[in-house]
């Protein structure tokens, strides 16, 4: 069928048909193909990006590139100063910070509680002791302060509260999950770590879509150490930011080779991704593919209709072409090439708009989903695969109606007989 001669004549016919067709019709069909392309790539890209956005945030603002954390049966990393010394000496490491972790009970409004029988306003969570400066260098924690101020090294008895511990920011009203009421910067609350209770001032409120941040209390590390009575400087988490362009796995492997894995869990941000996140990502990708498939079917029906109407209205001319000796295959190829042209133009415009405008724009201004700042995930490989699918589908959708019309009796076509 695809002899070079048929291809040449098919191209000759297709070129003239497109060139001398109504330009508005051509623009409309290309426009439909462009939106089909966007439907194929962008819908699934946003669905995957919704999860990817959450993963990126956990990576950037919580785990950083590599996270060293406690072994499952420990509450702290043994010989933490030594571990941090190893980290410090790795040239690929840019910044790191130690975090002390403990559970905490918070109580507010205790001064206004008049009745002993009245339920105290308490909440429970985790308290993290940080060096405010190094933590901010690694995870940019200060950017999530929505009320009050960020901690400084010399702050004494001051805390940052995660928004989910404050009633006015809590997105849900769930039984068994309590939050503190009437909290604002400057409010005094009681915190209880182990058996030690202390009155502290709320310096600020942290609100992030990363739940690990919004559900924690932050305090200067020296203050928390004094509360838990830890003088060994053993921390519970060490997020490590590595230099740009370095593979996190490299730093992980160096740490493991140095024996850090004997006293702590060493993971890159992707190693540390919970399985349900990976499953969700796959699920959304699957959902995106299902929606894309529907888009593909719509595209093929559109092209089928366009080519069918074109071929039916040009039936007489198809008959004339056959009558003067033009092969059926050449005529079919001309319609296939027309379909290809529409899909190609739509895809090229789509690719330009996607990578030149849409993806950078969404990266700069992520979509504000309730649990993540959604980005548009559109890897070149996946996009090209979808473009390929669109091409194949439209070529088939263009061929079938052309074949149906071309097969009709030559004379019947010329004379317009049924």
């Amino acid at each position, binding site marked *: 069928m695809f002899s070079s*001669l048929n291809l*040449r004549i098919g191209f000759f016919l297709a070129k*003239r048909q497109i060139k001398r067709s109504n330009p508005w019709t051509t623009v409309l069909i290309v426009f439909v193909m462009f939106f089909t392309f966007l439907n194929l790539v962008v819908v699934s890209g946003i669905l995957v990006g919704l999860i990817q956005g959450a993963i990126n945030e956990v990576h950037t603002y919580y785990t950083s590139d590599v996270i060293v954390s406690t072994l499952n049966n420990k509450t702290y990393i043994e010989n933490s100063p030594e571990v941090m010394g190893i980290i410090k000496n790795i040239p690929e490491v840019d910044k790191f910070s130690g975090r002390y972790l403990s559970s905490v009970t918070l109580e507010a409004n205790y001064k206004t509680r008049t009745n002993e029988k009245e339920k105290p306003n308490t909440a429970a969570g985790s308290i993290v002791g940080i060096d405010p400066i190094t933590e901010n260098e690694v995870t940019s924690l200060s950017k999530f302060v929505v009320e009050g101020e960020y901690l400084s090294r010399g702050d004494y008895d001051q805390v940052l509260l995660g928004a989910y511990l404050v009633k006015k920011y809590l997105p849900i009203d769930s039984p068994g999950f309590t939050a503190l009421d009437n909290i604002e910067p400057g409010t005094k609350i009681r915190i209880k770590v182990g058996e030690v209770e202390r009155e502290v001032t709320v310096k600020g409120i942290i609100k992030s879509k990363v739940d690990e941040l919004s559900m924690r209390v932050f305090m200067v590390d020296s203050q928390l150490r004094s509360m838990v009575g830890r003088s060994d400087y053993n921390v519970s988490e060490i997020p490590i930011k590595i230099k740009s362009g370095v593979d996190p796995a490299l730093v992980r492997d160096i740490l493991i080779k140095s024996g850090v894995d004997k006293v702590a869990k060493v993971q890159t941000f992707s190693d540390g991704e919970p399985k349900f996140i990976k499953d969700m990502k796959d699920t959304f990708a699957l959902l995106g593919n299902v929606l894309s498939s529907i888009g593909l079917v719509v595209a093929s029906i559109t092209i089928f209709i366009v080519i069918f109407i074109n071929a039916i209205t040009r039936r007489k*001319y198809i008959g*004339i*072409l056959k009558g*003067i000796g*033009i*092969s059926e295959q050449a005529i079919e190829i001309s319609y296939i090439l027309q379909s290809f042209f529409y899909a190609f133009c739509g895809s090229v415009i789509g690719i330009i708009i996607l990578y030149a405008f849409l993806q950078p724009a969404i990266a700069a201004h992520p979509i504000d989903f309730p649990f993540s700042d959604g980005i548009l995930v559109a890897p070149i490989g996946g996009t090209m695969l979808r473009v390929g699918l669109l091409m194949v589908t439209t070529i088939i959708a263009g061929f079938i109606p052309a074949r149906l019309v071309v097969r009709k009796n030559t004379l019947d076509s010329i004379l317009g007989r049924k």
Partner: protein
Amino acid sequence: MIEIKGLVKTFKDGESEIQVLKGIDFKAKTGEFIAVMGRSGAGKSTLLYQMGLLDEPTAGEVIIDNKNTSSLTIEEKTFFRLSKLGYVFQDYALLPEMTALENVALPLLMKGVSEKEAYEKASNSLIIVGLGKRLNNLPSKLSGGEQQRVSIARAIAHEPKILFADEPTANLDNESSRVIMEIFKELHKKGQTIIMVTHEVEYSKIAERIIHLDDGRIVQ
């Protein structure tokens, strides 16, 4: 050159069948100019379509250039039409999205002729029919007579063995019809075999031989 044996063509009209050609036997020699005449519905055009391999006869044989065409496949018939036959239709049958030159060059390109040669030959054919200055005009920019001349140029550009013309002057005014007939005369002089269906006695007179059809049979 062309021989028709026992040609029958029947059309179905619901339950009933209408026999339009009722066993036609006919021969034409190389270089002959034959006019096929008859009243409306006599089967003139139907006979031309069967001879020109544009339709399948119900029975009978069409032998062109010593080749029995009844055994040819659809693809072979298409190639046969391309290489040996030329057509001039009543309504010109030009492709509207192509210029006069492209319309004429198309069959040549299909024969595998290079683009340069095809356009050269097409251009010469258009010069022969007096349209040397209208090569790049679309059919919509040409008059009826000019369109028919493009149609003739397309039919002769690839030097067919037989030129079939189906009422070529039916849609034209007297002056244009006269010009078309002059072109046919010239082609015949150069040795082109022509079979032309017409119902106009005046134009049939330029043919060497006239065949009269009536009720699906040759009567004269």
